[in-house]
Protein backbone atom coordinates (compact mmCIF):
# COMPACT_ATOMS: atom_id res chain seq x y z
CA UNK A 1 0.00 0.00 0.00
CA UNK A 2 2.87 2.38 0.78
CA UNK A 3 4.62 1.73 -2.53
CA UNK A 4 1.40 2.07 -4.57
CA UNK A 5 0.54 5.22 -2.59
CA UNK A 6 3.86 6.79 -3.58
CA UNK A 7 3.56 5.79 -7.26
CA UNK A 8 -0.09 6.68 -7.76
CA UNK A 9 0.16 10.52 -7.94
CA UNK A 10 3.07 10.28 -10.40
CA UNK A 11 1.33 7.77 -12.66
CA UNK A 12 -1.93 9.76 -12.55
CA UNK A 13 -0.11 13.04 -13.26
CA UNK A 14 1.82 11.53 -16.18
CA UNK A 15 -1.39 10.01 -17.57
CA UNK A 16 -3.16 13.38 -17.41
CA UNK A 17 -0.20 15.13 -19.09
CA UNK A 18 0.02 12.57 -21.94
CA UNK A 19 -3.75 12.60 -22.47
CA UNK A 20 -4.12 16.38 -22.46
CA UNK A 21 -1.13 16.97 -24.78
CA UNK A 22 -1.97 14.00 -27.04
CA UNK A 23 -5.67 14.79 -27.43
CA UNK A 24 -5.14 18.54 -27.92
CA UNK A 25 -2.42 17.80 -30.49
CA UNK A 26 -4.59 15.21 -32.23
CA UNK A 27 -7.80 17.24 -32.23
CA UNK A 28 -6.52 20.77 -32.91
CA UNK A 29 -3.20 20.39 -34.71
CA UNK A 30 -3.56 17.49 -37.14
CA UNK A 31 -4.85 18.02 -40.71
CA UNK A 32 -7.83 16.21 -42.25
CA UNK A 33 -7.10 12.97 -44.07
CA UNK A 34 -7.56 13.16 -47.85
CA UNK A 35 -10.04 10.23 -47.79
CA UNK A 36 -11.53 10.25 -44.31
CA UNK A 37 -11.70 13.99 -43.79
CA UNK A 38 -11.98 15.20 -40.18
CA UNK A 39 -13.16 11.78 -38.94
CA UNK A 40 -9.51 10.70 -38.82
CA UNK A 41 -9.31 12.61 -35.51
CA UNK A 42 -11.39 9.81 -33.92
CA UNK A 43 -8.33 7.57 -34.22
CA UNK A 44 -6.80 9.29 -31.15
CA UNK A 45 -9.61 7.84 -29.00
CA UNK A 46 -10.53 4.66 -30.88
CA UNK A 47 -7.11 2.98 -31.18
CA UNK A 48 -5.85 3.72 -27.63
CA UNK A 49 -9.13 2.63 -26.01
CA UNK A 50 -9.19 -0.62 -28.04
CA UNK A 51 -5.56 -1.24 -27.10
CA UNK A 52 -6.32 -0.82 -23.38
CA UNK A 53 -9.53 -2.90 -23.64
CA UNK A 54 -7.59 -5.90 -25.02
CA UNK A 55 -4.47 -5.51 -22.88
CA UNK A 56 -6.60 -4.84 -19.79
CA UNK A 57 -8.09 -8.30 -20.20
CA UNK A 58 -4.55 -9.69 -20.53
CA UNK A 59 -3.58 -8.00 -17.26
CA UNK A 60 -6.65 -9.64 -15.68
CA UNK A 61 -5.56 -13.00 -17.13
CA UNK A 62 -2.05 -12.73 -15.63
CA UNK A 63 -3.48 -11.64 -12.25
CA UNK A 64 -6.03 -14.49 -12.36
CA UNK A 65 -3.32 -17.05 -13.13
CA UNK A 66 -1.24 -15.76 -10.21
CA UNK A 67 -4.32 -16.15 -7.98
CA UNK A 68 -5.00 -19.70 -9.20
CA UNK A 69 -1.37 -20.82 -8.87
CA UNK A 70 -0.06 -18.83 -5.88
CA UNK A 71 -3.35 -17.93 -4.08
CA UNK A 72 -2.07 -14.36 -3.76
CA UNK A 73 -5.11 -12.35 -2.64
CA UNK A 74 -3.95 -8.99 -4.00
CA UNK A 75 -3.62 -10.45 -7.51
CA UNK A 76 -7.30 -11.49 -7.42
CA UNK A 77 -8.16 -7.94 -6.34
CA UNK A 78 -6.05 -6.48 -9.17
CA UNK A 79 -8.09 -8.51 -11.68
CA UNK A 80 -11.34 -7.38 -10.02
CA UNK A 81 -10.18 -3.73 -10.03
CA UNK A 82 -9.15 -3.82 -13.69
CA UNK A 83 -12.52 -5.05 -15.03
CA UNK A 84 -14.54 -1.78 -14.73
CA UNK A 85 -11.68 0.13 -16.38
CA UNK A 86 -11.47 -2.44 -19.18
CA UNK A 87 -15.21 -2.46 -19.85
CA UNK A 88 -15.26 1.36 -20.04
CA UNK A 89 -12.45 1.25 -22.62
CA UNK A 90 -14.32 -1.45 -24.56
CA UNK A 91 -17.45 0.74 -24.63
CA UNK A 92 -15.39 3.73 -25.82
CA UNK A 93 -13.78 1.61 -28.58
CA UNK A 94 -17.14 0.20 -29.73
CA UNK A 95 -18.87 3.58 -29.57
CA UNK A 96 -16.17 5.59 -31.35
CA UNK A 97 -15.90 2.78 -33.92
CA UNK A 98 -19.63 2.99 -34.62
CA UNK A 99 -19.54 6.81 -34.85
CA UNK A 100 -16.53 6.58 -37.19
CA UNK A 101 -18.03 3.72 -39.21
CA UNK A 102 -21.30 5.48 -39.99
CA UNK A 103 -19.87 8.17 -42.31
CA UNK A 104 -17.03 5.96 -43.65
CA UNK A 105 -18.78 2.61 -44.21
CA UNK A 106 -22.36 3.88 -44.32
CA UNK A 107 -23.35 1.77 -41.31
CA UNK A 108 -23.03 1.98 -37.52
CA UNK A 109 -22.41 -1.73 -37.19
CA UNK A 110 -21.44 -4.74 -39.28
CA UNK A 111 -21.00 -8.38 -38.21
CA UNK A 112 -17.34 -8.12 -39.12
CA UNK A 113 -14.87 -10.54 -37.40
CA UNK A 114 -13.10 -7.82 -35.41
CA UNK A 115 -16.27 -5.98 -34.40
CA UNK A 116 -18.05 -9.18 -33.42
CA UNK A 117 -15.14 -10.52 -31.35
CA UNK A 118 -14.91 -7.11 -29.65
CA UNK A 119 -18.62 -7.23 -28.80
CA UNK A 120 -18.13 -10.72 -27.33
CA UNK A 121 -15.19 -9.34 -25.30
CA UNK A 122 -17.55 -6.64 -23.95
CA UNK A 123 -20.01 -9.37 -22.90
CA UNK A 124 -17.21 -11.27 -21.16
CA UNK A 125 -16.31 -8.10 -19.23
CA UNK A 126 -19.98 -7.75 -18.25
CA UNK A 127 -20.19 -11.39 -17.17
CA UNK A 128 -16.93 -11.11 -15.24
CA UNK A 129 -18.14 -8.08 -13.24
CA UNK A 130 -21.55 -9.71 -12.65
CA UNK A 131 -19.90 -12.91 -11.38
CA UNK A 132 -17.83 -10.98 -8.82
CA UNK A 133 -21.03 -9.28 -7.61
CA UNK A 134 -23.07 -12.49 -7.52
CA UNK A 135 -20.83 -14.62 -5.29
CA UNK A 136 -20.52 -13.74 -1.62
CA UNK A 137 -17.44 -15.78 -0.71
CA UNK A 138 -14.45 -13.80 -2.10
CA UNK A 139 -12.22 -16.85 -2.66
CA UNK A 140 -14.91 -18.71 -4.58
CA UNK A 141 -15.63 -15.55 -6.60
CA UNK A 142 -11.92 -15.20 -7.40
CA UNK A 143 -11.72 -18.86 -8.49
CA UNK A 144 -14.74 -18.72 -10.78
CA UNK A 145 -13.91 -15.33 -12.28
CA UNK A 146 -10.36 -16.56 -12.98
CA UNK A 147 -11.76 -19.46 -15.01
CA UNK A 148 -14.09 -17.07 -16.87
CA UNK A 149 -11.10 -14.79 -17.53
CA UNK A 150 -9.15 -17.65 -19.11
CA UNK A 151 -12.08 -18.50 -21.42
CA UNK A 152 -12.55 -14.82 -22.35
CA UNK A 153 -8.87 -14.49 -23.24
CA UNK A 154 -9.61 -16.39 -26.44
CA UNK A 155 -11.84 -13.51 -27.56
CA UNK A 156 -9.37 -10.86 -26.37
CA UNK A 157 -6.70 -12.45 -28.59
CA UNK A 158 -9.23 -13.00 -31.38
CA UNK A 159 -10.33 -9.34 -31.33
CA UNK A 160 -6.67 -8.33 -31.73
CA UNK A 161 -5.83 -10.70 -34.57
CA UNK A 162 -9.26 -11.19 -36.20
CA UNK A 163 -8.32 -9.01 -39.18
CA UNK A 164 -5.37 -11.29 -39.87
CA UNK A 165 -7.33 -14.55 -39.49
CA UNK A 166 -10.19 -13.50 -41.76
CA UNK A 167 -9.76 -11.17 -44.67
CA UNK A 168 -13.46 -10.48 -45.15
CA UNK A 169 -15.16 -7.70 -43.19
CA UNK A 170 -15.21 -3.94 -43.20
CA UNK A 171 -12.63 -3.25 -40.53
CA UNK A 172 -9.22 -2.29 -41.87
CA UNK A 173 -5.99 -4.07 -40.92
CA UNK A 174 -3.65 -2.96 -38.14
CA UNK A 175 -3.40 0.84 -37.88
CA UNK A 176 0.13 0.61 -36.53
CA UNK A 177 2.90 -1.29 -38.20
CA UNK A 178 6.64 -1.42 -37.83
CA UNK A 179 6.81 -1.88 -41.59
CA UNK A 180 7.84 1.50 -42.99
CA UNK A 181 5.78 1.03 -46.18
CA UNK A 182 2.54 0.62 -44.22
CA UNK A 183 3.41 3.05 -41.48
CA UNK A 184 1.05 5.97 -40.97
CA UNK A 185 2.24 9.53 -41.45
CA UNK A 186 4.27 11.03 -38.59
CA UNK A 187 1.68 13.84 -38.42
CA UNK A 188 -0.75 11.33 -36.89
CA UNK A 189 1.78 8.89 -35.44
CA UNK A 190 3.29 11.16 -32.73
CA UNK A 191 0.01 12.34 -31.14
CA UNK A 192 -1.35 8.77 -31.40
CA UNK A 193 1.65 7.40 -29.47
CA UNK A 194 1.09 10.07 -26.80
CA UNK A 195 -2.59 9.17 -26.55
CA UNK A 196 -1.78 5.45 -26.31
CA UNK A 197 0.74 6.17 -23.53
CA UNK A 198 -1.89 8.35 -21.81
CA UNK A 199 -4.57 5.65 -21.96
CA UNK A 200 -2.15 2.96 -20.71
CA UNK A 201 -1.01 5.17 -17.82
CA UNK A 202 -4.64 6.06 -17.02
CA UNK A 203 -5.42 2.33 -16.89
CA UNK A 204 -2.46 1.77 -14.55
CA UNK A 205 -3.44 4.68 -12.28
CA UNK A 206 -7.08 3.58 -12.07
CA UNK A 207 -6.15 -0.06 -11.40
CA UNK A 208 -3.77 1.05 -8.63
CA UNK A 209 -6.45 3.29 -7.09
CA UNK A 210 -9.22 0.68 -7.36
CA UNK A 211 -6.98 -2.12 -6.02
CA UNK A 212 -6.20 0.02 -2.97
CA UNK A 213 -9.95 0.48 -2.48
CA UNK A 214 -10.53 -3.28 -2.75
CA UNK A 215 -7.74 -4.01 -0.22
CA UNK A 216 -9.34 -1.53 2.18
CA UNK A 217 -12.77 -3.10 1.58
CA UNK A 218 -11.34 -6.51 2.56
CA UNK A 219 -9.78 -5.05 5.70
CA UNK A 220 -13.04 -3.29 6.58
CA UNK A 221 -15.03 -6.51 6.19
CA UNK A 222 -12.51 -8.37 8.39
CA UNK A 223 -12.67 -5.69 11.11
CA UNK A 224 -16.49 -5.62 11.09
CA UNK A 225 -16.55 -9.44 11.35
CA UNK A 226 -14.10 -9.31 14.27
CA UNK A 227 -16.29 -6.70 16.03
CA UNK A 228 -19.38 -8.88 15.64
CA UNK A 229 -17.61 -11.94 17.00
CA UNK A 230 -16.17 -10.08 20.01
Amino acid at each position, binding site marked *: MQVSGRFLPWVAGLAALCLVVG*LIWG*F*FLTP*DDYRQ*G*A*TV*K*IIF*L*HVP*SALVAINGWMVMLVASLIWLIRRHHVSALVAKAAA*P*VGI*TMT*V*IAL*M*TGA*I*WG*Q*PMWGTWWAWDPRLTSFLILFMFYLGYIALWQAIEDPDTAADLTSVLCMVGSVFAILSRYAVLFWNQGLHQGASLSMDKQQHMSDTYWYPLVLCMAGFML*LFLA*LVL*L*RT*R*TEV*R*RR*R*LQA*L*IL*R*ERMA
Partner: protein
Amino acid sequence: MMPELGKYAGAVLGAYGLSLLLIAGLVGLSVWQAVRMHARLRDVEERGKE
Protein backbone atom coordinates in the same frame (compact mmCIF):
# COMPACT_ATOMS: atom_id res chain seq x y z
CA MET B 1 -8.88 27.95 -32.59
CA MET B 2 -11.60 25.39 -33.32
CA PRO B 3 -10.58 23.22 -36.32
CA GLU B 4 -12.82 23.17 -39.37
CA LEU B 5 -14.56 19.77 -39.12
CA GLY B 6 -16.97 20.32 -42.01
CA LYS B 7 -19.76 17.79 -42.49
CA TYR B 8 -18.15 15.44 -39.96
CA ALA B 9 -18.38 17.88 -37.03
CA GLY B 10 -21.22 15.93 -35.39
CA ALA B 11 -19.38 12.61 -35.60
CA VAL B 12 -16.03 13.94 -34.34
CA LEU B 13 -17.45 16.10 -31.53
CA GLY B 14 -19.85 13.31 -30.54
CA ALA B 15 -17.02 10.77 -30.31
CA TYR B 16 -14.84 13.12 -28.24
CA GLY B 17 -17.72 14.29 -26.02
CA LEU B 18 -19.02 10.81 -25.19
CA SER B 19 -15.53 9.35 -24.64
CA LEU B 20 -14.41 12.16 -22.35
CA LEU B 21 -17.70 11.90 -20.43
CA LEU B 22 -17.17 8.17 -19.88
CA ILE B 23 -13.53 8.67 -18.80
CA ALA B 24 -14.49 11.50 -16.43
CA GLY B 25 -17.29 9.35 -14.99
CA LEU B 26 -14.95 6.41 -14.41
CA VAL B 27 -12.27 8.58 -12.79
CA GLY B 28 -14.86 10.39 -10.65
CA LEU B 29 -16.49 7.14 -9.49
CA SER B 30 -13.12 5.52 -8.71
CA VAL B 31 -11.95 8.53 -6.65
CA TRP B 32 -15.30 8.79 -4.82
CA GLN B 33 -15.26 5.06 -3.94
CA ALA B 34 -11.63 5.33 -2.76
CA VAL B 35 -12.32 8.34 -0.54
CA ARG B 36 -15.48 6.78 0.93
CA MET B 37 -13.78 3.44 1.65
CA HIS B 38 -10.78 5.18 3.25
CA ALA B 39 -13.10 7.17 5.54
CA ARG B 40 -15.17 4.10 6.51
CA LEU B 41 -12.06 2.06 7.31
CA ARG B 42 -10.60 4.89 9.40
CA ASP B 43 -13.86 5.12 11.40
CA VAL B 44 -13.92 1.39 12.14
CA GLU B 45 -10.21 1.33 13.03
CA GLU B 46 -10.64 4.25 15.44
CA ARG B 47 -13.71 2.62 16.95
CA GLY B 48 -11.59 -0.50 17.54
CA LYS B 49 -8.93 1.50 19.39
CA GLU B 50 -11.41 2.96 21.88
